[in-house]
């Protein structure tokens, strides 16, 4: 191209740039389907919601159900457990967010923001440690429940309190509260 003056682009410059741009954009666009195919597929996304009958769960008992392939912890808390949770000053909490999927992220992590009004004894949580995804202990009667009486994750030692909030250990967030509603007095629908 030495024979042409550098300032006046000619037809060949145009073709070179057009071809490079075409190949570049084309390659980038063609890449996307190959990346996106790995994301959760339509059948996985079409998540069924589940209904859970709470009537058989007595105070102090807990059950685990499965939703979206994840364990859901449902605990019928005793009045002492509820009181232990409400008593905690919010400043003592490691994670200040309620982590309630139905409430904005900013909502403070008080016990009432993690339960339903008038149903404070019921605690419904996604039973996945927010550290690296193990399932904390504390659902069955003779499980280790950790220093704060809620759940204890044996994988790397995270302690959760009776509202499922992280109090000690490497986990960064409170156990998440899934979207759910009470259908009747003793029936909830998750999802």
């Amino acid at each position: 191209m030495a024979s042409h003056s550098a300032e006046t682009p000619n037809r060949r410059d145009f073709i070179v740039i057009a071809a490079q741009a075409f190949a570049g954009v084309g390659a980038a666009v063609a890449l996307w389907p190959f990346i996106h195919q790995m994301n959760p597929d339509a059948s996985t996304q079409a998540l069924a919601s589940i209904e859970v009958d709470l009537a058989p769960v007595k105070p102090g008992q807990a059950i685990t159900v499965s939703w979206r392939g994840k364990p859901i912890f449902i605990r019928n808390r005793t009045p002492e457990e509820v009181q232990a949770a409400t008593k905690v000053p919010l400043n003592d909490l490691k994670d200040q967010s309620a982590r309630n999927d139905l409430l904005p992220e900013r909502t403070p992590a008080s016990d009432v923001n993690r339960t339903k009004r008038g149903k404070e004894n019921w605690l419904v949580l996604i039973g996945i440690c927010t550290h690296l995804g193990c399932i904390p202990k504390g659902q069955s009667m003779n499980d280790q429940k950790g220093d704060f009486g809620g759940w204890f994750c044996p994988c790397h030692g995270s302690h959760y309190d009776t509202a499922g909030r992280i109090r000690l250990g490497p986990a960064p967030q409170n156990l998440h509260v899934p979207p759910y509603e009470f259908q009747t007095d003793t029936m909830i629908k998750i999802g």
Partner: protein
Amino acid sequence: MASHESSYRPTSRFTKWIDDRLPLPRMMHGQFVDFPTPRNLNYLWTTGGLLTFFLVIQIVTGIVLAMHYVPSAHDAFNSVEHIRRDVNYGWLIRNIHAVGASFFFLAAYIHIARGLYYGSYKAPREILWILGVVIFLLMMATAFMGYSLPWGQMSFWAVTVITNLFSSVDAVIPGLGTRIVEWLWGGYAVSGTTLNRFYALHYLLPFVIAGVVGLHIWALHVVGQNNPTGLDIKSPSDAVPMAPFAIMKDLFGLSVFVLVFAWFVFFMPDYLGHADNYIEANPLSTPPHIVPEWYFLPYYAILRAIPDKLLGVIAMFSSILLLIFVPWLDTSRIRSTKYRPVYKIFFWLFIFTVVALGYLGAKPAEGVYVQWARVFTAYYFLHLLVVLPIVGVMETGRPLPNSITEAVLKKGSAAPKTR
């Protein structure tokens, strides 16, 4: 490639015909028969051949396993049991593959430690060294995905915990970490979908490794092998042809190693694994004590030593990635630690640190174990980032011999004096 007179002479008209068109036999002869190897190589130099051997073993046994294995959440566990019980010699091939992965790593660790001790990463071998680190990373990815395939409790929870490492990105860009993890899983939790893609990648990566090994050996044959003195080959008497000298030494070392390997395969195939992996994966219950395979333990200890999730993950990955920079972190002008009395002490301290981290990684993450893991994690990074550069500048080394030949003959070795 390292320049030496080729002694290749095609003997028949056919080999001559080939030589004029695709001189592959000439290249193989030049690279693996009369290639000059330092005459003073010790048994640590047999680990390279050993690693090549294990890569081949893993690929051959892996392809056989793939003929009988079913990569679905429903059938995977049972298909491995089927291989162990019903398939003719399935037990043997499966044991070779499972124990083979461990011995592959054992050989790799010795190989890496050798490189660190004799300064094999120093100019002009930086690219050779970096390719080695790349192979190591690919091996880890391959073994991690392979371990998911039997779909036992340890498989499932190892995949869960390790993939969740990426969720720590949430601390920087909220939501992105979760997106990455769900992308890796193909769902909202580890599932059969995850198993299926890991299987596809577990089949692929060993062949990628084979490709990088090719580059690694190419780079090696351009600059030539290092040796215990760290000196370059200066005269023909410093070297012997690869065949038969180095090849036979490699074969002898290999035989001894394979004997030990066979002992494990036949008499204690599950010794290096975890009993929990013979329980089928249960997404609703985590085993009380989850530990990775032994070869990941040092990094796992580093991860757990740091109380912050994101920083723990960063420390773990950088502990390996830092190795890439070792050629420039080490400021010493002497290659071989043999002639570095001060650094030698630190070297063994570093090896002790890695072993100690491995021990601590297998212990529960509490109390003194975490405290010690912190101490050793600190030394791991101090060694690479502070000791290597500073000792290299301050230390006065022991006098180097003038040549490899001199070093050998002084010791009264019976090594051949020809060439």
